[in-house]
């Protein structure tokens, strides 16, 4: 079992934080910011980001592309695992486009799902924030 966990962790590192990973910053409700990985404090906190999703429009039946950023993070890389408890606002900063050097934009974490304790990753569904006028 222990070996299996190690394999899963290794796989998650490759798939979420490896060559395709993008730098992510997590901001907890108390204002603390996590920018480095809890597994290796010399590395940036990385995650897999999907920017757009293809969904079927229920009215027309046609496929449409919706801007819907979803961030997947390795659970063991987090110092605190975000949740979407009502009243607690978590924020996350991700690159504007799929490039590590792109400027970052801030989103509220609207929903968090976990793939089960043994799989070891969390998926964040984001909501856009606009400046209060």
């Amino acid at each position: 079992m222990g070996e299996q966990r190690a394999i899963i962790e290794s796989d998650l590192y490759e798939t979420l934080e490896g060559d395709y990973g993008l730098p992510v910053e997590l901001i907890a409700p108390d204002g603390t910011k996590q920018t480095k990985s809890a597994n290796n404090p010399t590395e940036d906190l990385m995650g897999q980001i999907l920017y757009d999703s293809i969904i079927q429009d229920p009215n027309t039946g046609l496929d449409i592309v919706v801007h819907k950023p979803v961030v997947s993070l390795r659970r063991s890389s987090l110092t605190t695992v975000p949740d979407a408890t009502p009243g607690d606002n978590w924020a996350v900063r991700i690159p504007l486009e799929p490039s590590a050097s792109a400027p970052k934009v801030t989103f509220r974490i609207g929903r968090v799902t976990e793939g089960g304790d043994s799989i070891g990753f969390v998926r964040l569904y984001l909501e856009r924030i606009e400046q209060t006028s």
Partner: protein
Amino acid sequence: MTMNFRILKVSIVNLLGAAAGGNFRVIGYQKQAQEAFHIKDTDRSVQVFYAEGDYPKSAGSLNGPVMHDMTFNLDITVSKACKGDLATLENPASTAPQLQTALTNLKIAEDGVDDSWDECADLIYQILMDARNLDLGLDPIKVANRWVDRAIKDPLMTRGELVVLTGSMKLTCRMPEELLGEVGVPLMVFDTSLELDGDVIGKAGVYQEHDIVVEDTTGAIVLDPVSQNFLRAA
């Protein structure tokens, strides 16, 4: 040849579009140039469509106009994002207490979208039920019984990075419909009057003899002044 419910639908769209004042968009309405400050919130749209029609039968329906009890649905769609002090959240130099304050004061999209939908429904109700709009933009006395019967709000749903709230308002009214003839066939008028010399009774109409319609008025048929019968000329 257009039925009145179609004319009324266009009129409602124009009425709402003219009165929207940039507070919401009306789908189908051809927008005119507007001042920039009028466009304060363009993430709300209203779509007007004919949803249902009843044609009640009455004693006068046989030859007269047909009454049409029509129902229009006005679909309201509102989308919102969270609102907050984005400048602080985006600033890398922000301290933890500053970030905490910004996150605490964040107005989540679910709250904003609900308020926005309510405001939009409020505006539409005020426009449609305004006494000046009794005729829904048409000539006076054409539309009867206009009434906003119901407003329904659908459950919240997230679509992408926005929260979307939909719902509808039901508008009912009554108008007569005129039956003008078969679609696409121009009406042809046949003049069946037969004017005869010496016809003291009046216009004789079509003279028939042995199922043959006599349409000749050049003197082939004459009226016997004694018997008042039509006679074929010798």
